[in-house]
């Protein structure tokens, strides 16, 4: 159990917990119960704290491996960290017309100990495991922003992956259809 606090203005709950550096990963399970204690729902988030690699190009993956930021040494100072969270849905509302049912994955990226730069050489890769290779859209909402943008995304040949340029800290949502 971890302590939580509630911001009534936003309606958001906040939980604080520590991720041991030698592990670099942590997960939070949110259990929703009714007044009688009966389980209603389970939700979770898994967070990876990846140290920025200054030795060469590096794939910095989410805990589930379904999202990765491909980095180069430039862009962040040594010891900076890339926090990647695997979420069920974004905290901010989805774009108008996008239902939760078309969301394939949600990941958020936070840069710690460095700038909010988005080096041109960096990219993000998201897994789209659908076998039919239907079109998809990779949406991005910058941290603190309100406008979703469509990063497009290129399907990597022979692999169930969609790649796009790293757009910076924020939330990346893969949809199972073209948006808008």
């Amino acid at each position, binding site marked *: 159990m971890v302590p939580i606090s509630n911001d009534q203005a936003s309606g958001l709950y906040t939980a604080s917990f520590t991720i041991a550096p*030698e592990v*670099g990963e942590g997960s939070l399970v949110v259990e929703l119960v009714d007044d009688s204690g009966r389980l209603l*729902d389970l939700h979770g988030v898994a967070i990876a704290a990846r*140290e920025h690699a200054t030795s060469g190009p*590096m*794939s910095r993956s989410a805990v589930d491996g379904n999202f990765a930021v*491909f980095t180069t040494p430039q862009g962040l100072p040594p010891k900076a960290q890339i926090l990647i969270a695997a979420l069920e849905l974004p905290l901010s509302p989805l774009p108008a017309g996008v239902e939760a049912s078309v969301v394939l994955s949600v990941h958020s990226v936070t840069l710690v100990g460095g700038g909010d730069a988005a080096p041109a050489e960096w990219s993000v890769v998201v897994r789209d495991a659908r076998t039919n290779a239907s079109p998809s859209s990779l949406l991005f909402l910058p941290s603190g922003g309100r406008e979703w943008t469509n990063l497009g995304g290129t399907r990597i040949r022979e692999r169930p992956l969609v*790649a796009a340029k790293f757009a910076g800290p924020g939330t990346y949502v893969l949809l199972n259809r073209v948006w808008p």
Partner: protein
Amino acid sequence: MTRATVLLAALAMNACATTILVRNNFGTPVGQADVYINGSRAGATDTSGKLTVALNNGDHLFARKQMYEYVAYRGNHGPGQGWVARAYQTSLVIQNDGSRVDSTVANRMVTQTLNLDPNNALIGLHIVASVYADASQDELSAIRDRFVAASEYLYNLTDGQFLIEQLELADDGQLWGSAEITFHIDNTITPFTTYIGAFLGPVALSAPIIRMPPTTPDSQTLIHEFGHLGFGLADEYLGFGAGPQYCTQARFTATGGPFMSGGAQASCAMDHERYSSKLCSNQPNNPHHGGTYQFGACWDTIRFSPFNDATSNPPRWILQTPDTRGAIPGMLPPIPAGLRPTITVMNRTLHDLCQPFVFTDPSGAAVANTVVWVRPSFWVGFDFTIGKLDYKGAIEAHGLHLGDKIVTLGSTVPVPVTASMCTVTN
């Protein structure tokens, strides 16, 4: 039996026995070298470099001598600090066409001499793998078989210079903190490595790992991921610029020949392991293509890695690359039986474990792609996910026990795992 009869029997045995002499490249006899007859280990040489055994004409012989042991930085890799890799000289010669030359006994009445050479390098890996969940013997056997196949793939990939020598495979989270490779219960896990180049040594405080889904998709993927963790190689299907990114032009566009995608000499496994049998080099007939996140040819990275002997002069073992050979070797024969992985499976047997079974959510396709949680009846004290429902609202569940409860968006109440859906294994 009289003393004279015993003496005669001993003489008769000696008459059938042949001395095998193992020497190094300076001609000096080598003690404590392993000798293999027709692929199986027959014993080790004594201090004079000799082993006397029964041989037949036509037997195939080779020897290997351990030159170095890489100490493990993770636990549970053997007595003391344990080991994570061993470097050997062998008498096996890998030819440029991929054939492997050993020594054939032409006349068993004379001493057979096996010549070790630092250019015939062999690196044996010691891997610890841990399955997060309680697994059945069948599941563990399937994973074990994948490692056996993975060793064969690695052996051919590296032109006979790397293989998996030893593996400990455990379930129920045993050896978890010591494992290089972990298998998770969540079916949405995509195989990946948490940091490249951290097999022989740690990265800061951390011990990076390879993470796999409940069942590894194939043996080649294990080796692709080992390419990251062990060899420090980056992916070659991604890179700089608009792309497309690929390792070699031939695998990208060729429609024939050994270097085409799926060909016997296609590269690279860091581009796509299923369609590649080799690592890329700078050989003019199939050179590494720039622009990927893998700077330079994979073999260049390995050659200048700690897997090569850079501390001794002359080197005790020397990794050969297509560039040092002047050719990309063809497909190798299988690993000699005596060099196949030694595997220990540690199956902790808990009660009421189900064989993997398909759970279909009561709401079916309406809840496709949603997360499936499990509230365990006894196994661990917290809820965990086993993945997402597929497009039909179904999932193959691994590691569940009778009495566990499955929680999904589509279920108004948690669904208990009952005997009707579960074939109990333990």
